[in-house]
């Protein structure tokens, strides 16, 4: 005997389905609460003898009223073999809220999409295949009172009960890091009672406890581990409510509604003309098939342009501070290697990065603001829809979004992808997504060679290029090296909300603080090492030092007017530094790379300083933010510090005047930076996650090759189009 339970919202037509399945004639009414207690009937489905149990309608399993408690108690009972979740097709989103809780029970579920005729009349078209894939169970359209779809429903129940239904797979709602962490703790405590943990899914029980569901509390009270479980439950509830500023029931409900809303957006092809909420109306615009992406692009260009324009002021103040520090060190530290390390290495190297901290903070603040409003989830939804077309979607999308912050946790986050094929594809395309470290390079280069709005557009385009390439490579890899289907996944769409200023400011400060700590560690170390490589062995060459000394004395002996003498001494100093730099280890290495990089960064062979790009890009292999510091050291950025009224940083001024880069080669440099070899941290993580040197090497090699090809295309197509 197989037991199936009919569950659904009040007035969704459960009793009609019950009657149709069992041949009974219970009263059917068009109002909620027709079924106030459970009742059962028998049905023969093929060779199966089935007991069908009709339960009172309920909106939630954490319900408080008696009839709803009956439903909750029975549904969580281990004796239920299959749940038939009856959904009102004309009010799908609200009905799916209960489904999100049923999913947590990890029981086989068949979805009866009832009143499908009403939905159709309202103009709602539901993609049954997509809905079935997203819910992890068969979805059968039914019209209970006309017996339509009942045979198909019976067939689906038999397939699920006998374990031959292909669409069955476990699906869970993600509740966010904080709640998930508390759930893990609570599940651990529930696991102390093996009997309790084996009867019901511990995660479901933990969720119910966080919601203070009376049924779950009653179940736990019968356990020998009740004291520990209740204590952990109270601690978790207190922590979450204090930390997230709302009661647990609301927090969980928000995530579930987000899931249901995302599900509806994915599965409904045409929305009916019924009443639409503010969120629906706004979503209709922001996630519109054609308008969604232009709106997203416009918002992001606005954000980047704003950060460039506003960020310029604090950037100038910090640059002036470093210029003073540089002057002070030059005047007070006696000449020698240590002075050079400070004046030519550490101060310009670290300073070049620190000047961009306000811009990064502003940008992160704007993005946190958009996140808090709920807009970024919509942006993710739009991008996810694009990815569907490229065979790379579902759970792969979350790591890619994480990759915009940092590729390392993004690669690690692929662990949540069950399919090895999907996981490897995601790992290999993750480094193509532009991370925040690369953003510094774009801010430096785009800010130097393009006016603010064009710079914002260029940075935006680079981010899109990264995503576009990730999608394209995903498709290529799926068609070649990793054939197979990928698993569907629901993008959650939380309700729109007014952001809290405090939370945005905390986010900005966190970002700024971490960037500063990076400046004091990795960038400081990188600048020191790059200084050594770009000054030795020349700086210790006694012969050159003597020659310089003699020339200096000769200039002084001429008794020239002060201005003329200062100019000549500065020119002598610059010539000496260039001599040291051009004979350095870094220069030798950079010149070795020059033939390979010349076609993309120096196509006309008119840039004697092009080797410096090679040095900076090589340093970027350690960490991408070292690129900026390295450029400051090898380009001797401090030489331009005195430029009065300059709106650019010293390094930007130097690059603009002396590097020989044009806007086109600057764009090629940024394209190459976006795509070439991932940083060492990412490479290490790829090795750790794939456990394969072959795939790790492949990731490095294809990034390098693809980066070169696209940078080459940028320069040469740009030239064909008449750009400089």
């Amino acid at each position, binding site marked *: 005997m197989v037991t199936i339970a009919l569950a659904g919202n009040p007035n969704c037509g459960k009793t009609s389905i019950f009657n149709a399945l069992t041949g009974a004639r219970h009263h059917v009414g068009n109002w909620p609460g027709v079924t106030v207690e459970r009742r059962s009937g028998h049905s023969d489905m093929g060779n199966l003898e089935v007991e069908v149990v009709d339960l009172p309608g309920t909106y939630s399993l954490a319900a408080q009223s008696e009839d709803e408690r009956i439903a909750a108690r029975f549904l969580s009972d281990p004796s239920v073999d299959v749940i038939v979740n009856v959904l009102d097709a004309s009010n799908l989103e609200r009905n799916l809220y209960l489904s999100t809780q049923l999913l947590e029970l990890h029981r086989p579920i068949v979805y009866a999409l009832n009143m499908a005729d009403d939905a159709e009349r309202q103009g709602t078209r539901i993609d049954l295949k997509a809905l079935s894939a997203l819910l992890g169970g068969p979805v059968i359209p039914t019209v209970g009172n006309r017996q339509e779809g009942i045979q198909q429903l019976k067939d689906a129940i038999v397939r699920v009960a006998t374990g031959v239904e292909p669409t069955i797979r476990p699906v869970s709602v993600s509740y966010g890091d904080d709640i998930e962490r508390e759930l893990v703790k609570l599940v651990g405590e529930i696991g102390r009672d093996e009997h309790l943990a084996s009867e019901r899914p511990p995660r479901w029980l933990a969720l119910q406890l966080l919601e203070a569901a009376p049924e779950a509390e009653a179940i736990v009270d019968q356990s020998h581990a009740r004291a520990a479980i209740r204590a952990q439950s109270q601690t978790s509830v207190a922590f979450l409510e204090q930390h997230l500023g709302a009661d647990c029931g609301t927090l969980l409900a928000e995530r579930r509604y987000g899931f249901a809303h995302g599900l509806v957006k994915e599965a409904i092809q045409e929305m009916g003309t019924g009443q639409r909420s503010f969120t629906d109306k706004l979503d209709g615009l922001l996630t519109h098939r054609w308008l969604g992406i232009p709106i997203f692009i416009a918002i992001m260009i606005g954000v980047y342009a704003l950060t460039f324009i506003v960020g310029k002021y604090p950037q100038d103040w910090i640059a002036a501070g470093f210029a003073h520090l540089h002057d002070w060190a030059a005047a007070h530290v006696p000449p020698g290697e240590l002075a050079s390390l400070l004046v030519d290495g550490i101060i310009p190297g670290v300073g070049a990065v620190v000047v961009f901290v306000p811009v990064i903070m502003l940008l992160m603040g704007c993005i946190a603001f958009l996140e808090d409003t709920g807009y970024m989830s919509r942006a993710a939804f739009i991008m996810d829809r694009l990815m569907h077309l490229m065979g790379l979607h579902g759970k792969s999308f979350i790591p890619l979004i994480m990759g915009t912050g940092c590729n390392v946790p993004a690669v690690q986050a692929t662990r949540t992808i069950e399919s090895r094929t999907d996981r490897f594809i995601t790992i290999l395309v993750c480094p193509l997504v532009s991370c*925040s470290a690369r953003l510094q390079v774009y801010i430096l280069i785009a800010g130097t060679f393009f006016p603010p709005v064009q710079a914002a557009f260029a940075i935006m385009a680079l981010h899109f290029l990264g995503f576009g390439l990730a999608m394209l490579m995903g498709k290529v890899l799926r068609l070649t090296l990793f054939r197979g289907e990928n698993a569907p996944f629901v993008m959650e769409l939380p309700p729109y909300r007014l952001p809290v200023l405090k939370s945005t400011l905390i986010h900005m400060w966190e970002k700024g603080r971490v960037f500063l700590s990076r400046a004091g560690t990795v960038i400081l170390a990188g600048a020191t090492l790059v200084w050594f490589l770009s000054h030795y062995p020349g700086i210790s060459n006694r012969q050159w030092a003597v020659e310089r000394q003699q020339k200096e004395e000769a200039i002084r002996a001429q008794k020239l007017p002060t201005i003329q003498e200062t100019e000549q001494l500065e020119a002598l100093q610059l010539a000496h530094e260039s001599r040291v730099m051009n004979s350095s280890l870094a220069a030798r290495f950079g010149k070795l790379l020059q033939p390979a990089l010349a076609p993309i960064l120096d196509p006309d062979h008119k840039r004697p300083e092009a080797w410096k790009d090679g040095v900076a890009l090589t340093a970027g292999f350690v960490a991408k933010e070292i690129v900026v510091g390295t450029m400051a050291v090898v380009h001797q950025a401090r030489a331009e510090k005195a430029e009065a009224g300059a709106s650019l940083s010293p390094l930007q001024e130097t690059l603009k005047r002396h590097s020989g880069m044009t806007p086109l080669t600057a764009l090629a440099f940024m394209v190459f930076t976006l795509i070439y070899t991932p940083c060492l941290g990412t490479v*290490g993580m790829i090795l750790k996650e794939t456990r394969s040197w072959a795939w790790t090497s492949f990731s490095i090699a294809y990034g390098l090759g693809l980066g070169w090809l696209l940078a080459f295309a940028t320069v040469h197509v740009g030239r064909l189009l008449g750009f400089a």
Partner: protein
Amino acid sequence: MTLQTWIALFAVTLAALYLAKGFLGSFRGTGSCASGCGSCGAKACPAKKLEERLRRA
């Protein structure tokens, strides 16, 4: 060699060792991730959170 040279070379050695530690750590999965996600080293590091979650699960 002057005192300045010694100090500079000592600083360079320290920097090289620091970066080498990060380099080796990356491959062992123990070093700083060195890619500037903005939350590296902070409690909010997504990699650390995920690692912790997986360990507990």
